[in-house]
């Protein structure tokens, strides 16, 4: 987990020191990147480009903007285009946030590979 092999049956003070040092470095980097995370804006459009959505890194919708063609096909078609635009914007924001996290992890623990999707899945299934 910390980028080097530790034998649990032979845990030494230097292993603990090294893990603490890495944790400190990672926490400092995370604090630094929090600002960048807050600045992420995800964008998405409906199929025809008449509906555009922007969302924050946590998926909160910032704005839905329409052009005059957006309402031509009626309210039901408009609803579908809004859903598409917002979902695409949320996906875009999530990709940006994951990319930032991945970059941060690589910088904090160079040479270590992370499968964020697997970690996410593992976290979600803790209480299953």
């Amino acid at each position, binding site marked *: 987990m910390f980028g080097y092999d530790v034998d649990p049956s032979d845990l030494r003070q230097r292993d603990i020191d090294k893990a603490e040092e890495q944790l400190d470095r990672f926490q400092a980097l995370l604090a630094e990147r929090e600002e960048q995370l807050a600045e992420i804006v995800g964008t998405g459009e409906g199929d025809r480009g008449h509906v555009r959505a922007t969302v924050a890194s946590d998926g909160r*919708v910032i*704005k*839905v*903007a*329409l052009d005059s063609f*957006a309402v031509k096909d009626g*309210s039901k078609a408009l609803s579908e285009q809004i859903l598409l635009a917002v979902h695409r914007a949320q996906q875009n924001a999530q990709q940006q946030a994951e990319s930032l996290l991945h970059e941060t992890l690589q910088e904090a623990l160079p040479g270590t590979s992370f499968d964020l999707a697997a970690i996410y899945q593992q976290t979600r299934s803790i209480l299953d």
Partner: protein
Amino acid sequence: MPLPPEPGEDAHYMEQVIGQTETALNRLRQAKHLIGEVRGTGEAAQGLICATADSSGSLTGVDINPRALRLSVAALGDEITEAIRLAQQDTSRRTGEIIEDAAASAGIPQPLDETFVRERIELAASNMYRQS
């Protein structure tokens, strides 16, 4: 739950910890299930626009009354944004309440720390010293 004063009570203490942990996990599982069922709603334009969001804040529906299309495109966009924003806020509030309740009632036992281990080692050392 106070730590056992002597090693003879450790097994009983452990049983209590396991029981408490199981109860806490069940409460957290229940909370997770309730969170999964949360749906937030938000209305704007005097109820002509209604948005719904699921527990993750993902938009699940936008219902637009055709009369809302009489608004200017800019105003319609603002009203749609407001309905979605309110639905996401509603979701966040409901989810937050479930988490707060779960955290307050889960009662997760304090983990044994190095103090406990040190006490046990010192006790064993002192017993050995007395026996020698």
